[in-house]
């Protein structure tokens, strides 16, 4: 049996659908302007993949609604005819969560991109799902406010997608993830009904449905409006760069800073390979001889910051930093951050392709996990550069490979899966902020028992009995896990080479 098909929609639904496509298309064209119902190959092409470009599939049709009522009508129409719906934000997701379905409708929310309200009195913004993450901060700036979560794709990614993935960023330890910064959402459920969760309020009665929607990858409902909390912009910021001759020293310094009761706004670690690639690309002034560097951002009121800065610098010295640079003005700070923020494209120049992993581990496990990654890297014969959100334990090992070498893509993916297994074994998780999508379905089998997976499926069925919302994503079927069960890749050879592998 083909696992990919199992993970796809049920045969029953498929049969229902083939006869229904004509009727669905007619209704979609009746409710939307002609340009918002895309069926031609050239128009569909941009939607065949998201940020996980290794996975492509042409959708049957793409629709671009402009109102919540249209979203609800599309959902009702698809539900009546058993057609899968793949919600899509800006398409920047890194785990294939917006991978199209060849029999399904891609419901793109890019045209719902209005900022409905900035309310400085209540320190909130109400926005449509297609609004870009950074656009919220830009709109709030006139009031001295900003929206805290800043995933690296914030110029392009949409707030609806951020909610679907529970997006993070570099400031999570202090300011939280998307789930901690969203106060309300309007959601079109699988039935086409609209439910309003939360609002401008600091708590709501009953099980926390808003938290459940965050990170549900478009499988429980389609978010049509989001209310986010805004924060006052920090009065001052300081950015420090510390260089270490051993990775362990850097890891210990991170633990010591947190033990001292300090929560930096951001604390990033890069290993030697990442530092060298970033420096060659961005000329940020990183020390090329360092085995690891830390970039630490502190923020707060001016008086508070002066004390913090001294405390952190003292700790860094005590834990063996041999060089500490401080960026005082915005230009210098941007330069120090530029190296870190361009780490991925910088690695892209070193290697024809790379695979970005997204494990999270307890901070203390970092030296151990880095050693294991090194061993895995040697076993597989592929290089790894490590970029680490040290403050919150989110590790992004970048596996370097060449997709033009036959078999190397699979080899790299198998190696990535091994790295994630090491993260789980260290007490961590297979995805910190990128989501499961289709990419990590197999590694989910490592993290969860069959009872836990079944509970996820019952939860899904309770909220989406049609099982048409983003089918086949997020949670692996038991069959799939069974077939992969005990699968440990030896020398890069997969036991089921005929299966589609993500």
């Amino acid at each position, binding site marked *: 049996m083909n696992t990919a098909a199992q993970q796809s929609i049920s045969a029953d639904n498929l049969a229902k659908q083939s006869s229904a496509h004509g009727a669905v298309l007619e209704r979609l064209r009746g409710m939307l302007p002609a340009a918002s119902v895309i069926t031609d190959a050239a128009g569909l092409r941009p939607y065949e993949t998201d940020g996980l470009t290794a996975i492509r599939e042409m959708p049957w049709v793409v629709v671009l609604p402009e109102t919540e009522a249209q979203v609800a009508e599309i959902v009702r129409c698809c539900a009546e005819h058993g057609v899968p719906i793949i919600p899509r934000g800006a398409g920047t997701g890194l785990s294939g969560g917006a991978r199209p379905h060849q029999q399904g409708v891609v419901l793109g929310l890019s045209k719902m991109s209005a900022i409905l309200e900035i309310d400085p009195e209540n320190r909130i913004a109400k926005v449509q799902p297609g609004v870009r993450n950074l656009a919220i901060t830009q709109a709030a700036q006139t009031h001295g406010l900003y929206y805290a979560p800043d995933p690296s794709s914030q110029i392009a990614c949409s707030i609806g997608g951020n909610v679907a993935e529970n997006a993070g960023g570099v400031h999570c330890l202090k300011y939280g993830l998307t789930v901690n910064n969203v106060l309300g959402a309007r959601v079109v459920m699988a039935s086409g009904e609209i439910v309003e969760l939360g609002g401008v309020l600091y708590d709501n009665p009953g099980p926390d449905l808003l938290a459940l929607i965050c990170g*549900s990858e478009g499988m429980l409902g389609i978010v049509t409006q989001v209310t986010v909390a805004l924060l*006052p912009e920090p009065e001052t910021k300081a950015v420090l760069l510390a260089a270490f001759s051993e990775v362990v020293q850097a890891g210990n310094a991170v633990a010591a800073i947190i033990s001292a*009761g300090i929560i930096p706004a951001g604390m990033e670690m890069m290993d030697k390979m990442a530092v060298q690639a970033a420096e060659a690309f961005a000329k940020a002034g990183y020390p090329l001889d360092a085995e690891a560097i830390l970039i630490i951002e502190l923020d707060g*009121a001016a008086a508070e910051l002066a004390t913090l800065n001294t405390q952190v610098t003292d700790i860094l010295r005590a834990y063996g930093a041999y060089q500490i640079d401080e960026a005082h003005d915005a230009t210098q700070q941007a330069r120090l951050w530029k190296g870190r923020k361009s780490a991925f494209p910088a690695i892209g120049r070193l290697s024809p392709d790379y695979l970005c992993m997204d494990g999270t581990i*307890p901070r203390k496990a970092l030296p151990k996990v880095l050693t294991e990654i090194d061993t895995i890297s040697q076993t597989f014969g592929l290089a790894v550069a490590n970029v680490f959100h040290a403050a919150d*334990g989110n590790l992004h090992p970048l596996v370097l490979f060449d997709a033009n070498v036959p078999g190397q893509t699979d080899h790299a993916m198998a190696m990535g899966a091994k790295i994630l297994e090491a993260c789980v074994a260290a007490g961590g998780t297979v995805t910190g902020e990128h989501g499961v999508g289709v990419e990590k379905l197999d590694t989910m089998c490592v993290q969860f028992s069959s009872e836990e997976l079944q*509970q996820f499926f019952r939860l899904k069925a309770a909220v989406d009995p049609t099982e048409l919302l983003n089918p086949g994503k997020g949670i692996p079927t038991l069959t799939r896990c069974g077939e992969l069960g005990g699968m440990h890749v030896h020398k890069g050879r997969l036991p089921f080479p005929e299966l589609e592998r993500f």
Partner: protein
Amino acid sequence: MSADYSAGFIEQIKAAAAHQQRLQIKGHGSKAEWLPLASGDDLLELSSHNGILQYEPEELVLTARSGTSLADIDAVLGERQQMIACEPPQLSPGNVSQANGNDALGSGTLGGAVACGLSGPGRPWLGAIRDAVLGVELINGEGEYLKFGGKVMKNVAGYDVSRLQAGAWGALGIMSVISLRVQPCFALERTLSAEMSAPRALALCATLGVRNLPITGTAWIEGQLHLRLAGNDSGVAAACVALAEFGLQVNADDEDLWRLLKNQNHGFFQKAAQRQSGAAKLWRLVTPSAAAMPNFLSDPNSDALVLWAGGLRWIYHDDAQAVADYCRQVGGWYWAIGEAMPIDPMQQQIMAHLAKAFDPHGVFASPLNLNAAAGEA
């Protein structure tokens, strides 16, 4: 005193499922008077299932059995100058009403804090209990032992079943073990106070809210606005100077104010016990911060307590319709302590379906009555 009773719970739940019995979940029973309890055939007693399993200050994570008392957790965290940031209330039994012999065992468990989803006076600045939850080990209505989330800050593997438990009052199962994110205590806390009316206090809170000040609590009560500042010494000192222009002065007499408000030992709450039955009820109103004060209070100075920069308002009032109308008008929700919590019907339906997905036999007698609704559906 630390012991693992989860195997016994699994047996008890499986037996109840087999015999169509309902189990009432009980921790310390400190919130037993907050909602009408759904009746059960038997009790699921969680308070003996206690003990801190793992605490690593440098990881900012604490893992404990759900029956562990909040007081014990506070003591252990306090030794390392850490805290549960959202300040879950530790309620002294009987302070809401002293009616019918309360048999509370203590001032609250970790499991009870998460299940009830209540947060202390710092909610807008320090987060809610749902923000602190990193992972739970849950026993569902089939008696299956399931692990969700984990011990790390960032985790998007699978649906967020852990945070879903916050506010569920046990409708989706019993939490056996909970991992929480903890936070360093602030080096210094100061309370500033000034006399002013409630509308003036709300306006000032809104003004200060967009400024970068180390505020971690506001309370308007008895004609006074109190602000809590917290941070390092120099940051708090600078803020005290900045706030003097609003007439806010350091108030050394009210050191205990925030603890009293958090645990509802403040005189304002004591009045509930003193009032005769049939008199004004105690209402908990969650409103947009900037919403105007209700105009039906005859004496706001004695009948209202405004927290969360305006987002939480406790009032005494006897006209339920007036309270309901006010909340509808400002876009908030209300709850008369001791009565059922009103839930939007559409959401109630989703919650009932979820309850059925976790507890198909309706074993858990949750006071939200979701399971009963699921059974009837």
